[in-house]
């Protein structure tokens, strides 16, 4: 990741996310660079005045100017820093938002892979440690500050190298007077810079090494930290005395991380003495040169202070600028992870065909010889599935655990792509459709559905804005109304614990809300994966009896272990080991003696026969 390209990219992104930040930063740094020079310049003036025994009033005037200008600069600088700080924070948040949105956009299939998890983890950590956009900008601005400092210093130093007023002398002292005496100083500066750059490079490399190793470890630490706050796991951890086991794993992790840190610390310790030595050497050189010049009368006493300070500032600035370049290089490398993550392609959104809205609702989906296995596992979950599904029917999908029912649904929703074969909508491969449009066709209640810690109304509508009447209607249909009436704030009640007084809802109640959400979306295909597993018999019966009403003219696909739900479906698909082995309605399937359906049905129905 070459620095030049990164710089441009970052600047463009910053300008987009937080306009004004860069300009503010630059101005602040320029003022900051000027700060030390006020004292340098005025300090030497005052010193000279003192040597000349100037009147007290004149000296105090100079002092007042110095103190005054200094104060103004500092106030201005820190005032601006305040604004910079706020903008910095907003910028950071916006970058995080970008990453968050990206994870919503990536194809689900790609999200669900370990590689993506790793890239995302690296990006997240990179951004939060050395690779943040903000620190990148600060480094750039820092370089600018150093540059200003260099310019100011040089301006001050020029008179130092010009021949002084004293008569020319020979020998070494004469050399001092020549302008090329400056080379002595330059040499000292170059040496110190070289030492510093070497050290910085090595430190940066060490740091990054540690980062790579720790990404994995941090992922684990995050998981453990998450465990301590999840109270559903807390029950098990206490009841099964799993504390020792978990603590053991945590300790292992920490020990590993400690080893890494210690190793890095040891290696960087050895580098530090070099930096200290070079700083001392530089000071010595500068005082020697300037001091000698003063002794031999080439420059005034007061100006000694000025030149020494200016020279030291200059070397510091030049050294820092080189350091900045090293830093930028390092930061670019961290940022690379971030850009890697952002540039994961969204293949789903390559499709462009819009779905034709059909008033006659004649949608037909066809699975053509579809086979599928999950990315991490070679076992074929679906195997040569061939089926046409027309809108307007009620379908049940049944089978044993792991037979491929949920997978079938996920492929239908295009969360995963088939490994072999294709899925067609009205004769066109679904990959050609615009995914936003395609997703609009489906209202799904997954087995592991998720509601979010916001208001009930927002959860039902899956958006910040909603139609209140419609929300209430859907809640009523899903059977949640009784529970809602117990809540003083009604649909504005926040659920779960993110807010102070978030309402806790049980698994069954959550399921009803998920159903309400599916209803609100009003999509032509309604898919319910175990929608009544947490509901009690009465609530379950209500859902069944209103089912017709709920899915009036839509296609409903109903996955359930509750075989009773098959009774009111027109078509039942029986899955076994990734294939559709039987299909038909309840009566016909029941007649197939020894068939899987028959066995599944009886396994459950036997307990409900009246003796």
């Amino acid at each position, binding site marked *: 990741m070459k620095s030049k390209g990164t710089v441009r990219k970052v600047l463009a992104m910053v300008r987009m996310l937080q306009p004004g930040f860069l300009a503010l930063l630059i101005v602040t740094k320029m003022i900051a660079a000027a700060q030390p020079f006020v004292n340098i310049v005025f300090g030497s003036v*005052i*010193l000279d005045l003192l*040597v000349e025994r100037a009147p007290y009033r004149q000296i105090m005037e100079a002092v*007042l100017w110095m*103190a005054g200008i200094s*104060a103004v600069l*500092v106030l201005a600088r820190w005032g601006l820093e*305040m604004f910079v700080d706020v903008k910095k*924070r907003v910028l950071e*948040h*916006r970058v*995080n*938002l970008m990453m968050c*949105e990206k*994870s*919503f956009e990536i194809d*689900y299939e790609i999200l669900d892979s*370990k590689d993506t998890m790793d890239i995302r983890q690296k990006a997240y950590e990179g951004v939060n440690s050395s690779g943040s956009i903000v620190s990148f900008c600060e480094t750039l601005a820092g370089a600018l500050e150093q540059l200003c400092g260099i310019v100011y210093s040089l301006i001050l130093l020029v008179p130092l190298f010009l021949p002084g007023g004293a008569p020319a002398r020979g020998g070494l002292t004469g050399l001092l007077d020549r302008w090329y005496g400056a080379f002595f100083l330059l040499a000292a500066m170059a040496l110190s810079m070289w030492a510093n750059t070497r050290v910085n490079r090595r430190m940066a490399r060490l740091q990054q090494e540690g980062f790579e190793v720790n990404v994995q470890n941090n992922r684990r630490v995050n998981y453990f930290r998450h465990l301590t706050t999840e109270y559903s*796991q807390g*029950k098990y951890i206490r*009841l*099964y005395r*799993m504390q020792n*086991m978990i603590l053991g794993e945590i300790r292992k992790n920490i020990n590993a991380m400690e080893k890494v840190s210690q190793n890095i610390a040891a290696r960087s310790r050895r580098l530090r003495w070099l930096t200290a030595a070079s700083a001392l050497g530089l000071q010595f050189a500068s005082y020697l040169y300037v001091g000698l010049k003063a002794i031999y009368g080439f420059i005034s006493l007061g100006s000694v*202070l000025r030149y020494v300070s200016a020279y030291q500032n200059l070397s510091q600035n030049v050294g820092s600028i080189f350091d900045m370049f090293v830093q930028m290089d390092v930061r670019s490398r961290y940022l690379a992870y971030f850009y890697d993550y952002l540039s994961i392609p969204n293949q789903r959104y390559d499709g462009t065909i819009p779905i034709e809205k059909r008033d006659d609702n004649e949608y037909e989906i066809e699975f053509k010889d579809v086979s599928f296995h999950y990315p*991490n596992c070679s076992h074929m979950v679906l195997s040569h599935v061939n089926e046409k599904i027309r809108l307007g029917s009620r379908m049940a999908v049944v089978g044993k*655990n*792991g037979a491929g029912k949920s997978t079938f649904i996920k492929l239908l*929703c295009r*969360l995963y792509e088939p490994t072999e074969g294709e899925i067609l909508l009205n004769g066109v491969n679904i990959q050609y459709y615009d995914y936003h449009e395609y*997703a*609009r066709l489906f*209202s*799904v209640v*997954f*087995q592991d559905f*998720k509601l979010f810690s916001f208001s009930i109304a*927002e959860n039902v509508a899956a958006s*910040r804005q909603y139609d209140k009447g419609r929300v209430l209607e859907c809640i009523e249909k899903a059977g949640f109304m009784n*529970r809602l009436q117990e809540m003083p704030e009604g649909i504005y009640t926040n659920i779960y614990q*993110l807010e102070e007084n978030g309402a806790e809802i*049980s698994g*069954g*109640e959550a399921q009803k809300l998920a159903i309400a959400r599916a209803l609100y979306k009003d999509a032509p295909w309604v898919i319910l994966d*175990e929608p009544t*597993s947490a*509901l*009690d*018999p*009465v*609530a379950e*019966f209500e859902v069944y009896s209103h089912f017709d009403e709920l899915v009036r003219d839509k296609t409903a696909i109903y996955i359930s*272990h509750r075989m*009773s739900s098959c009774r009111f479906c027109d078509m039942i698909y029986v899955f076994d080991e990734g294939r559709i082995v039987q299909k038909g309605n309840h009566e016909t399937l029941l007649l197939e003696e020894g068939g899987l359906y028959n066995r599944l049905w009886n*396994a*459950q129905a*036997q*307990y*409900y*026969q009246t003796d």
Partner: protein
Amino acid sequence: MATLGSQNGAPRIMREAVDFLIKVFGLLIYGTAVLTLDWRILLATVVLLAVDVLLRFHAIHYSDAHWEEHSEACRKMNYLERSGFNIPDGKDIRIYQMKGWFRERYEELIRQDASFWKRDCLRWYYPTVADEISGFVRNVLLYGILAAKVLAGEIDVAGFTLYLGVASGLVRWIFPLALSFSGLQEASHRYNDYRDFMRVRDVFIHDEEEGQGEPQRDKGPLEIAFKDVSFAYEEGGPDVLSHLNFTIKAGEKVALVGNNGAGKTTLVKLLCGLYPVTGGEILINGKRLQDMNVDDYQEQIGVLFQDTSPLAFSIAMNVSGCPDELTDRGRVRESLRQAGLWEKVRELPDKEDTYLTQILDDGGIQLSGGEQQKLLLARAIYKGGGMLVMDEPTAAMDPLAESQIYENYNALAGGKTTLFISHRLASTRFCDRIFLLENGKIAEEGTHRELMALGGKYREIFDIQSYYYKERGEREDEK
């Protein structure tokens, strides 16, 4: 929260404390030097320090007072980010196109956070302003005094430079000192959170010494009695359980049924010693639960709850709950077999050492909902003990697997006292007695036949559930 990150809390205290000591030392040296010059300079510097410290305290105080409020926005943003990274959530997010919703919420939070931050920053600007004003005064004073001394001949120009350096040096030590001090304060405030957390008292007795009576190490089945038990989650809140009375004899198999919200899961949590009762008492083998060592008691019970996710460790560790070295492998395999999961586990290359999810091990696998439930069942079986409690253990299992559990129920229970909670009334066939819980009380009690004959709530629920399972003919009759 107190130790989160190395920027605050305990690690910060360690760093700042060392820093602080160094600065105090430097201060002493420079301070003495300045004092020998002119006491007024030292005074001015000290006054300056005092003003600065006061203003910084004000800033810290403000930060503290608004800490909760200010961190709220960040906490919520973290929540949103975590949802983005959580893979199962991603399904709903895509199908329902929730991106826009999240973005709006996030933007709102950014605005909120920015306005808090602005207010915070302003508080920190005040010390800077005060510093500059008093710095101005101090500098003028310093230069004035020193210049006068030079002109008066008391010190020479070299001395001027020296004292100037010393006085500036003093400033260099004093301000960081104030900063250090306020930093320490801030860090210790965060550290207090940590201390408070560590000091949280246990509700139950855990210590060996404090428990009365013998630890319950009997290996036999337990007898449970609830005497007039009431419970509310919040003080003054509604009673979830109300004057509950029942006894489960040792070795008895009891089914607990009832509608959502009737209090079934709460009853289980009380039984497991996870929450204390607010009224009445629970007796285990005749001894009061609140007087027992709860750790020993919990050794005796195997429990299976409704919310199913396993831990990201290996299958064996999930089942045994122990570190690898202490796990009894034979017993793990037997438990998996009894739960119906062994066939699947046997096929895996690492068998029971396979990790679940890929968080801790790249080669980890995902289990389906039904498989996870079997895993939890295996965990309860492995544990053994005198009582087995199962809360909806078959909710995610297919009919065949479910019926297997029922058929093997006796073997599973193995003479232990068992409590089976389920919506699926089929399960009640295998139990000795059934309790129907309604509104926090036991409304009906008896065997399946007795309750059907009673013709009450139980019968009603049973009929509703069996409705679709009956043949067409039978249903017509009932209509």
